[in-house]
């Protein structure tokens, strides 16, 4: 039974196409203009290796190590050997592409677009910009102050702040790669919708009164925007730095996630998850969120687990809720935000993130 499933899964995986428009490899020559042919060669090499991964790891697991496909160990090892390089390759490619895309969007530019935008339309634009504008959680507060004091409405600012961590571009493309575009679209759509609605509600409720007074009292020196134009070699450097930064940080989680996934894949009986995280039980969604919140890690580590859970019959909604709670709701971030929003407002923020499930 397991072997039939394996073959089917491998066949689907083998058909994956990669979005070649964002495809750039991490190893590019230092020279300024060599990156065009260098990039094409690197993408081609990447693609060839990626296409051959399935048969290569099959050969490794079943021929070289002599494992049997239908045993628990065999299917777990094969999963580990195949998913690890696959996810890492996708990750490098995606992070590099996103790093380059992000070099076009600075917080200053985003703010300029959002300033003076009205509610509703502004909420939508803000949620979309939240996905591509680079900012880390420790910038959330200065960003918040910088936005609201220069005339970006509070609700619009929140749409931005909510969508940024919730629609994680790494998660998005990994979902696309591992599960297909439908699930990626559900993930992105839900995240954006929640960000738009939550921001709109916050705007409607006139939450401005809950913002600590010193925030609005802050006067900006209004110094120049930091925005020198970048050329392509600099954007490539951005992409490379993003790879070093992000992949360097998450690779351990990825491997741990895949190892857990491999265990689930090989040893958990079919449809076991269906009884726990299946469609039927109403409490499955809140429970999954509850388990997910303290497990704050990151998209890259959680997706292999998600994939294995789905394979064992967990309901898609529950699993997506689990994943988004893991990525979107982090304790440290809530604590930092607390400082400038006051207790009430930060509770609204985490509630709104929780509501997405």
């Amino acid at each position, binding site marked *: 039974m397991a072997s039939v499933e394996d073959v089917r899964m491998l066949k689907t995986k083998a058909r994956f196409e990669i979005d070649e428009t964002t495809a750039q490899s991490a190893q590019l020559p230092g020279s300024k203009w060599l990156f065009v042919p260098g990039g094409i060669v690197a993408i081609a090499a990447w693609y060839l290796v990626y296409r051959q991964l399935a048969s290569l790891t099959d050969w490794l697991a079943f021929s070289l190590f002599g494992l049997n496909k239908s045993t628990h160990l065999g299917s777990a090892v094969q999963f580990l050997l195949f998913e690890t390089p696959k996810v890492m390759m996708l990750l490098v490619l995606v992070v590099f592409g996103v790093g380059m895309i992000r070099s076009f969007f600075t917080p200053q530019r985003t703010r300029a677009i959002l300033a003076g935008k009205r509610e509703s339309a502004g909420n939508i634009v803000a949620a979309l910009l939240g996905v591509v504008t680079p900012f*880390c959680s*420790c*910038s959330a507060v*200065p960003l918040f*102050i910088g936005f609201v004091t220069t005339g970006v409405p509070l609700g619009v600012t929140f749409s931005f702040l909510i969508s940024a961590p919730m629609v994680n571009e790494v998660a998005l493309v990994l979902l696309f790669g591992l599960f297909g575009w439908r699930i990626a679209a559900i993930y992105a759509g839900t995240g954006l919708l929640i960000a738009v609605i939550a921001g709109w509600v916050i705007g409607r409720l006139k939450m401005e009164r809950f913002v600590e007074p010193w925030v609005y009292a*802050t006067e*900006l020196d209004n110094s120049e925007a*930091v925005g020198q134009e970048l050329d392509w070699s600099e954007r490539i450097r951005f992409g490379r730095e993003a790879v070093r930064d992000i992949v360097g940080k998450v690779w351990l989680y990825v491997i741990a996630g895949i190892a857990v996934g491999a265990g689930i894949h090989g040893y958990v009986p079919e449809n076991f998850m269906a009884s726990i995280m299946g469609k039927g039980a109403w409490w499955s969604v809140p429970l999954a969120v509850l388990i997910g919140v303290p497990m704050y890690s990151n998209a890259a580590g959680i997706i292999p687990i998600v994939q294995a859970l789905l394979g064992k019959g967990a309901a898609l909604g529950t699993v997506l809720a689990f994943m988004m709670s893991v990525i979107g709701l982090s304790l440290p971030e809530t604590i930092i935000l607390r400082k*400038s929003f006051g207790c009430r407002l930060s509770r609204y923020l985490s509630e709104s993130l929780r509501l997405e499930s």
Partner: protein
Amino acid sequence: MRNIIVYGPGCAKCKETERRVRHVIEASGVEATITKAVDFAEIAKAGVLATPAVGIDGIIKLSGRVPNEDEIKSWITER
């Protein structure tokens, strides 16, 4: 005498930025005061939207990422 401010509430990237700035200053022998702005209000007031950021003599040179040492060197040597 250059006046350098590193903006950042204390995340890993901010600390790395400060470390690099100090390192470059020590190595180059340029006279400078280095201060770290950790207060959110102060950071926002300077017009910084994304940390880490580096300001030299009142001008924000970079924000949102960790500068490499060559960049820092070019800022402190230019007049």
